[in-house]
């Protein structure tokens, strides 16, 4: 087991691009090597030790590597991008694109994550204890597929467009979601425990289940017979008819 603990020493006002913070990149490296890993502060190339105190225990492969970030890093973006295995634990908040394109492993954020968390992720698990921003598990600009696999759990609320263009995988939101969760859903499963508005616009495939109140329903859905899932009765709709879609939308009765 290899455990790397990063403690933030200064908080930059300028955003830091840190796609290099992944178990894949840290595994098997010495403390000195990790301290010298490149990150970018704006357009300025810098190294990890400028912003973090680093403590290292052991040496192992990516699947047995755990990164603990002890504190909030609200200006550090792209943590865990593309990671394939291992674990990241963030004891605080994190900036945008956490877990983007991740393929495996687990990221746990104790605080809140900003927008684009789990963008285009393919596998693994992303757990956010607080809230998440816009475009949770979505596709980036122009992309026809967002999340393709894996699982995202958010215990707090999320903002608009969660799971936009989701093509696979699962999103569970314990709180409420903003506008249009699952817009252009193309095969993913989204569950929202709280309230939302206009879910599933342009949905082609996949499932959206809402246990809270839906403020506005997109008019282009066809109502089916009610269905009972796990003891809860849902109004079932299929659509989005406008997109020739065959997705299922369940709203608690």
């Amino acid at each position: 087991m290899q455990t790397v603990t990063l403690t933030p020493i200064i908080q930059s006002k300028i955003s830091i691009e840190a796609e290099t913070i992944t178990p894949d990149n840290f595994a098997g490296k010495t403390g000195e090597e990790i301290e010298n890993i490149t990150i970018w502060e704006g357009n300025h190339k810098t190294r990890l030790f400028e912003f973090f105190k680093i403590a290292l225990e052991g040496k192992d492969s990516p699947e047995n590597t755990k990164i603990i970030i002890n504190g909030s890093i609200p200006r550090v973006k792209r943590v865990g991008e593309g990671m394939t295995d291992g674990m990241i634990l963030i004891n605080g908040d994190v900036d945008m694109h956490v877990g983007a394109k991740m393929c495996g492993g687990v990221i746990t954020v104790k605080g809140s994550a900003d927008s684009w968390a789990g963008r285009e992720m393919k596998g693994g698990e992303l757990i956010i204890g607080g809230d998440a921003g816009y475009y949770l598990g979505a596709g980036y600009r122009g992309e026809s597929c967002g999340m393709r696999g894996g699982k995202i759990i958010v215990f707090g609320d999320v903002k608009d467009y969660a799971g936009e263009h989701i093509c696979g995988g699962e999103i569970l939101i314990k709180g409420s979601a903003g506008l249009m969760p699952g817009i252009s859903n193309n095969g993913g499963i989204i569950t929202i425990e709280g309230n939302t508005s206009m879910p599933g616009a342009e949905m082609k495939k996949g499932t959206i289940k809402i246990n809270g109140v839906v403020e506005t329903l997109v008019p282009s859905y066809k109502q089916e017979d009610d269905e009972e899932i796990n003891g809860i009765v849902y109004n079932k709709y299929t659509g989005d008819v406008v997109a020739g879609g065959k997705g299922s939308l369940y709203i608690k009765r």
Partner: protein
Amino acid sequence: MSELLIKNGRVFDPINSINGDIMDIAIKNGKIVDDVSLSPNTKVIDASSMIVMPGGVDAHSHIAGSKVNSGRIMRPDDGRSGIEKRTKITRPCSGYTVPNTFAMGYRYAKLGYTTVFEAAIPILHARHTHEEFGDIPIIDKGGLVLFGSNWQVMEAVRENDIEKLAAYVAWGLSASRGYGVKIVNPGGGEAWGFGKNVSGLHDTVPNFDVTPAEIITSLAKANEMLHLPHSIHLHCNLLGTPGNYKTTIETMKLLEHIKPGMDRQVVHITHLTFNAWGGTNWGDFESKADAVADYLNQHDHVTVDMGQLIFGNATTMTADGPMQYANARLLNARWTNGDVELEDASGVVPLSYIRKMYIHDIMWAVGLEVALLTRNPWQVLLTTDHPNGGPFVNYPEVIALLMSAQKREEEMLKLSNKMRDRTTLSGIERELDWYDIAIKTRASHAKILGLTDHGKGHLGAGADADVTIYHINPDRVDAGREHATVKKAFEKPAYTIKDGEVVAMNGEITATPAGRTFWVNASVPEEHNTRLMRDLRLKFRKYYSINLANYMVQDNYVKHPVVIKAGGS
């Protein structure tokens, strides 16, 4: 005084009928010369066991202008692919189907190409095209100008006033600093202004009382009256519609009796992949490339290019507005529509060509069939209609497919059975040789464009010193079986030399000179010009959104011009 000697290469220079002879190529001050006296300043490249060809020429590609830029704007996803960091001498690159301007130049140079022609410039947007040309490093450029749905053109056609039409073509080329006459779905661009299309060669264009057939033949006559270096360059009506091969052949027949004003074809019909289709709908869609090739084998007034389809991402962009609308609806894809005032329409639609989708599989076969069934290699150019059929970086794949029946067979195993039944590709055993490839990738492009006299496409004394050296020994490599080796060699030429300077080596850029821009200045008798200007002043006053005085592309937008003179005799 820079001198360069390329020693002992196997030279393929079809314009000078050199077929793989072991020769030295001497270069002095950016031009090919008969010989150089070896001095300490002479740089020598040992090209023994390598292939030497003239620098590649691409007569039909979409590399610059408002359409390409629309593609970039609507495809941020494409912009995120193909990212290359800047180096000491190159600027950062991005994109695959619609690369940024720098990447256009670097990637063509890395592929061994030194001259590329943009295939569609609306006069009104020509300034934009030239601004991008200025940003595209290394390669020489030129552009074909859209005339097919232009009000001034159609009015002259209606009046059957070929002199005035020729005067307008000459004026349009000068206004846009353009090189030749491009016609896209003649009449269709205007009809699209009313949400319609023309249904064939003899359908009438709304409000103009002319037919596509009349537009094509009149522009061909005007083109030959002006003795332009290139013939009319035609994107046929009904492109992208099943059964359109009939229109394509009918179009070729229309022009059988027109006498070329120069020693070349009368018409170049472009991207046959999209207009040699049989069937009546998408259900019975089939290839009719054999019928088109049959016609080409009996007539020499037509040349064509493949517009080969490449599986994967593409961004279709054309002045054929109605076709692009149909495309976007059919595929439920993103769509950009453009209207160029009195001149034309346009559309951009990103799409993906997918193996096992039989329509795409058949389209893939059509391009190859045309190239392989047409006996005369000079008649069919190798293109992908970048980025409509696929990005130009895939030319080595197409070369390998043309040179190896085995590779085609291997590729067909991945495709649908309907493709085998509805095309003749599996029965074609022809394999092109190195000489044919040199014709299809440079010599014939230059000849068809009328650029051989201006130093392109060959290695004779006096030609521009644009040379590509490929790391492959034709004696050792059996292209039919070792197609992977062939593809690799064409992907990374050992050297690309532009004007005597090594610009790329083994896939790395080594120098980034600015390229030149070819344009044609055709003179017409003053009386026709006077009549034309009377019409134009009225049009600008009544219809155009800008002034005549602000319309012409100024010379400072064309930094390194090569002006070719043409005109009535």
